[in-house]
């Protein structure tokens, strides 16, 4: 399996596992560990953990909210403010998680580079 897919899967699995017992930054830890184990190159260093966490957070948020007719999401989307659109809120949620994962991925890669030699 290529490193890109491995990194993606491990980031996703670790993020899922860590989220059970750790606060929100569990996704940063997941991306970091995955980046150390499966070193990526170029823009993928950021983008693959970004996508992994983005999918995790949007998917999870959608499942929870869809079950409840987006009752709270509609209200939070007024609060933030996102025009009361719950899907925009889900998108923002994914981007926030993605950014956290992406930057942690870059940091993981640099740590790995530091200890490699």
């Amino acid at each position: 399996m290529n490193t890109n897919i491995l990194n993606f899967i491990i980031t996703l699995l670790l993020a899922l596992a860590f989220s059970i017992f750790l606060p929100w930054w569990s996704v940063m830890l997941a991306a970091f560990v995955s980046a150390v184990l499966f070193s990526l190159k170029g823009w993928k260093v950021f983008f693959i953990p970004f996508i992994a966490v983005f999918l995790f957070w949007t998917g999870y948020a959608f499942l929870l909210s869809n079950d409840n007719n987006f009752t709270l999401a509609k209200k939070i989307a007024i609060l933030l403010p996102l025009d009361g659109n719950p899907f925009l809120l889900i998108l923002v949620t994914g981007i926030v998680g993605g950014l956290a994962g992406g930057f942690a991925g870059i940091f993981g890669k640099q740590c790995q580079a530091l200890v490699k030699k």
Partner: protein
Amino acid sequence: MKYLKFVISLLLTVIIYYGLNTKFGSVPPIGKFLNPATGIWQNEKDETITGTVSIDGLKDKVTVHYDEQLIPHIFAENENDLYRAQGYITAKHRLWQMEFQTMAAAGRLSEFIGEAALNYDRRQRRLGMGFGAEQAIEKIKEDPETMAFLEAYAEGVNSYINELQPKDIPVEYKLLDYKPEPWTTKKTALLLMYMTKDLAGSDTDLEYTNALRIFGKERFDLLYPDFYDVIDPIIPKSTDWSYIDVPMTETPASELPLDTISKTIEKPHPDNGSNNWAISGQKSYSGNPILANDPHLGLNLPSIWFVMQLSTPTHNTFGATLPGALGIISGFNKYIAWGETNATRDVQDWYKIEFKDEKHSQYKYGDDWRTADLRVEEIKIKDKAPFIDSVRYTHHGPVTYDQNFMGDNKLAGYAMKWSGHIGGNNQRTFLELNKGKNYDDYVNALKHYTAPAQNFVFASTEGDIAIWVQGKLPNKWKGQGKFLMDGSNPQHDWQSFIPQEFNAHTKNPERGFVSSANQHPVDESYPFYVFNDGFETYRNRVINDFFNSRDTFSIQDFRDLQNNNYNLKAAELLPHIFNTMDTSSLTEEELQILNEIKAWNFNNDIDELGPSIWSAWWRNLHSLLWDEYKVDDVALKTPYDYQTVHLLKTKGDDAFMDIIETPETETAGDLFLISFKKAVKSLMDWKAENGSYNWNAYKATYVGHLLQGLPAFSRFNLPIGGGSNIVNATKKNHGASWRMIVEMSSPPTALGIYPGGQSGNPGSKYYDNFIDDWAAGNYHNLNFMQSDTGTDAVIGTQTLISN
């Protein structure tokens, strides 16, 4: 190079972590907030209402049935378990609100809101809210049974807090980024202080002092009479008071300090009030007494009320609870029903304090100096150093105003004497009412009750109806406490209290009904001194006229009356205006609007134009008439509406009618015309911006979230009529906060509704699901379960067991 990359990536990671983990202004810590595993997405659900939960301290099993309104019906084997379960279940649905209200009462909002709440917090501290709560707890300790229930309730709340996972804490905590703290018995006392302040924390002594100094005694008495020419008191006028045989307090021959007071603290909402009434079996369609209650408070989400059924093998009670307090506050059991309205009695007075020196440690009293205790109030502020606001306490009470707070005199201050500080076991009254079986039990329950003074209406299945004006009320000398008093003169102290049995009351009056709507409790024949501290004068007359108009009344009549939109104030003034106003100078547009209001039937219904025109007109008329009150740096209170209307109708050429800033001398007729033209202009401006000014759109009633009406969690533009001084007292953000009608059949049958929902979670469908029905004037049948055997109406059952 790789070191540089490492450092940059580390920095970026730290920045992103910090940026997403920190609250910036009103923006929550966005990473925490939006994390689907622990953030707000976890609140996207209804509460669990099934299964078994173990709770520390329970003696027996407790069964909680939920009906389709999410009303919990709690069946416990003993009272201790009952109140423990009440605490647990209330916290489960309303935790954030319970804590928020008690933090607000204690003056602790700055702890999680920040410096923006500091002035609010200081005001609470200077009113002695914490002091009052501590006094109440001291008093309740004399009653070990009530104290034990308070502790069980607190432990019940804490059982819930302890089992709460971070992901499940209410949305508001996540938004403001803080956590719930343990519940204590003091918090229950603070909640009751919150209600005391809301209902008996308003007085105008300092404003009256200014008015007396500026206008003189004769004019003052014209503007602020103790009794109006027309009153319809709570206790019927024909009542014989000759059994009251205690001496009245003599008025001392002494001077009052006529200080100039530039500013006073914010008052509770002037319309905080309520309606209640009960009719006897003779006046009832079925022969059973019927009772109704609707408290008028700020319209908030989560609602101030939480409806519950509380049952043990020895009693079974249903009604509205206050989250944080024990038992049912306005409700019924198998034998009796009760409800409250505010008694609006003056139980808050102000004393001028003369300090010996700038240290403020001693103040003058009689011929001596007394020590003023120091209470150090440390107000913690989010992200800031604490603010220390030390308050001096005299034997009267806290020195609210001094050089550190809204005062500039280095050697003087104003101390507050308030029945809220006396310490009372008000909780016991409600616990006993919950178990009451007849009139005697009700009367005995009331004896514990001190503040805020309330009109307790009563009806029983035995056929009795009654109303008591209950509170610990000072036996004042005539005129005492209307103005600022001299704190150094012992004769100005409250000398004694009205003996409880002489509090005004009536049982089974001949007219076949009892009622109250915050009006005068009694007429002038009552021997104790009662003065008008803002008694209502319209709703009570509509209610009493209604019950005097016919022989019998049905449940539908009760519903109609609670939703009655008749505007008596407008009906008493407008015909006079129509008869006297010179309309020759009106433009076509103005004439059209005059015709619109002339066609109005005085009902504040949602599709009418009249109420909006009246509202704009009255506002402008009031402001023109009382332009004498617009004095810089002097706190004043304009006369009450009844007297305002009375003066407009009977003293149209009084000097007050003149508009000071014009060279002409205006009369009431001129004011009507000028204010009408102004009102038309403001309505036209409003229309240009918003469209039709029908009452629905113009009033725009909303129910606002407790956090300053946070729009996302509030409901706007509710189609409901009514207004100020109307039986359906629904104003923009204030009105009937709970409507209840109980027929005293065996067992009683009841209707109830409130503008909110049982859940405090904005993510729950039960958060605001009553609002539309409430606005439409609909009610829910309250399902008074007679045993813990679940019925078809049960949508979920939770069992609480001991650990």
